[in-house]
């Protein structure tokens, strides 16, 4: 059976992620911090589990985002800088297949890196009877979705830039996605112009919104994340990833080395 070029590249990305040790080390650090935070006992009685869930979700988010940036930003530019891209493209593989393969391999590798952290969160929630494990799993899934979108954004940027520029710009997009609500609020405060309000709204709908994947409040306060929300957010992540991947493949297609 001949494997699809996308799958071959994806498998290679995962093997490379394991070989470089960056991802396992980051995952190990994340797990260590989550386990350590489970034993902090100076919090007020009854609120330890709330603190623990808060800390664990934030750690998963921080280390997951870091792993995503480290892994994805070096994918295309790494190949170009080390000139292995010539070898790869001399094989029967199209450029868009290479980008898609890099994306698929990265998101699976990140999923594998994040899974133990989510597992530890669920374990301590089970031990302390600190809420629904299903909701914790949903939070883990939502965080992974945000890393999928971040991977697509980073790959789109990596298609025309070096790894450092890619990492910096990806962080910028991420921060801008949170700042856009501040911009809208500020626009509302300083102007009554309909045009400005319309521009702010357009800005809101077109820029990535990573806040969509934030279900921390629901998990910490033992609320239920509706399946419909999960479904809609999955579609949102798919649309956003498709847009950025399309952008990335188009730019990479035209790029000369």
């Amino acid at each position, binding site marked *: 059976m001949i494997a699809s070029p996308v799958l071959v590249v994806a498998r290679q990305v995962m093997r490379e992620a394991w070989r470089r040790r960056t991802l396992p080390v980051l995952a190990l650090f994340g797990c260590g911090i989550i386990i350590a935070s489970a034993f902090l006992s100076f919090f007020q009685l009854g609120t330890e589990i709330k603190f623990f869930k808060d800390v664990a979700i934030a750690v998963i988010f921080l280390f997951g985002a870091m792993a995503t940036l480290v892994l994805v930003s070096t994918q295309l530019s790494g190949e170009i800088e080390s000139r292995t891209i010539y070898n790869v493209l001399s094989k029967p593989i199209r450029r868009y297949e290479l980008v898609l393969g890099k994306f698929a391999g990265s998101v699976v590798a990140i999923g594998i890196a994040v899974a133990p952290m989510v597992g530890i969160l669920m374990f301590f929630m089970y031990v302390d009877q600190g809420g629904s494990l299903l909701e914790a799993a949903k939070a883990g899934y939502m965080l992974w979705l945000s890393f999928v979108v971040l991977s697509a954004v980073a790959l789109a940027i990596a298609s025309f830039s070096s790894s450092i520029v890619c990492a910096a710009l990806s962080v910028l997009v991420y921060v801008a996605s949170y*700042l856009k609500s501040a911009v809208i609020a500020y626009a509302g405060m300083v102007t009554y112009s309909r045009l400005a309000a319309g521009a702010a709204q357009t800005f809101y*709908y077109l820029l990535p919104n990573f806040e*969509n994947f934030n279900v921390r409040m*629901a998990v910490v306060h033992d*609320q239920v994340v*509706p399946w419909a*929300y999960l479904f809609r*957010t999955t*579609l949102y992540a798919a649309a956003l990833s*498709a847009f950025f991947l399309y952008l990335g493949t188009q730019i990479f297609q035209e790029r000369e080395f």
Partner: protein
Amino acid sequence: MTARLGHYRPLAIAALLLVCVAGTQAWVDVYRPAVNDEAGVPFTGAAVIVRSFAGQIRGLLADFLWLRVDEYAHRRRLVDGDLNRADDAALLPLVRLITWLNPHYVEAYALGGQWLAFHFGRPGDAVTFYNEGIRNNPQAADLLTGVAFVQWRLLHDNKAAAARVEQAANLTGDDMVRFQALWLEAHILLDGGDRTGAIRVWRRVAAMPGYRQTAEHFLAQIARGGAVPAAPGTPRP
């Protein structure tokens, strides 16, 4: 002509994908309050900006700020045998920041309200702060009894105070919380001269399992025309 159109195809596809992004975002927004009830909180412009900068780690940030407040609050200096008010004044912005980052931080609202009322002599501001906390956390009995105490003792608005504790008493859950709320309500009513109201409240307490003896003690005290004792769990500065 076809070649010319083909030239615009990538742009058309990108635009179509952007429309999908905007459409799904609008679709997600419909469900947003079900997942994050902060989505409906009317934050001020400053709060929105602070929250945006904190991003997804704002909950964690609120938790650590609370630890800082707790640590500093226990290190307040004594001046002439009394707590140094300047130390509390320095901590209040942290409390405000916590409630911006996490509007469900009941403890921060309770502490901030208490400090405003009893340390800084600003009961009006304390009530406003408590009310904001109650609006964001309608099930928080601590905040309802806290604001009732300020309205009763400092603003002498017994009617409003009694309404607040009645609200706390009607929250479902802990019998102890219900008892404390009714206890306070009975004293507020008696202090306002409403003996009948106080007796009615103590009878409600008597109907609660385990509290009959306490209720009968106070009913007997009222029958003897006893004075209003100091309220239990009086918030201490």
